[in-house]
């Protein structure tokens, strides 16, 4: 298996680099909301909010579902998986390498 940094990770980074989008994402982490509820307390226009939600959706961080006339948004729980992959990969990698280091030290001349 070869690990290559995916397009998705770059998009996640870009999506969350914007403070407003981070705020939107944090709100959604508290539960499902529609676009109007999301705008409460934020000085942001409806078109701008739509734009931010589109970026978050594109990055796989947010999912939407239609409820009557409203569209509800929620955090897509699988969207952050790539961020966990890095930790998982190196948590497995280093202990194995340390075992090899111990082996090497036994074989090295003083």
């Amino acid at each position, binding site marked *: 298996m070869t690990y290559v940094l995916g397009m998705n990770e*770059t998009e996640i980074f870009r999506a969350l680099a914007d403070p407003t989008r981070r705020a939107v994402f944090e709100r959604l*982490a508290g539960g499902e909301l529609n676009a109007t509820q999301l705008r409460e307390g934020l000085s942001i226009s409806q078109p701008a909010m739509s734009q931010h939600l589109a970026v978050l959706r594109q990055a796989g961080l947010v999912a939407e579902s239609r409820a009557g006339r409203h569209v509800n948004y929620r955090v897509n729980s699988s969207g952050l998986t790539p961020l966990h992959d890095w930790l998982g990969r190196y948590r497995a990698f280093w202990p194995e390498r340390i075992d090899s280091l111990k082996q090497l030290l036994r074989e*090295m001349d003083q």
Partner: protein
Amino acid sequence: MTLDAMMPDTAEEVDFECELEAPPEKVWRALTVPEFLAAWLMPNTLTETETGKRFAFDGRRYGLPQNIDCEVLTAEPGRLLRYRWREGDDADSIVSFELSPRGTGTRLRIVHTAPSRFAATMMLAANSNGPPLRLAA
């Protein structure tokens, strides 16, 4: 769903400590002699372990990128070695090896800090109960 439930792991680094049955000087050689380094870590293009020197690891054997582009950040023989570990665009992490004598052996601590762009997101998760916008970009 809360971020805590979704993302319980907010670590920004992996951190290992081990006791080695060899003095720090010998462990240092295992870290800095290219052939030794290749034997336990990965094939590499290391020449000299000096601050600013660049080299690469070939990580394919372990499912890592073919070209892990590294630059020595700190080299204090027998004590501390740090390098930048670049897996791709926007994916700089830092690996450090701290050596300290323990009897006739060595305590080795390896800390590998996640790329900052990952860490920013992890911080977001860690701070999800705080006021929004309090994180620096």
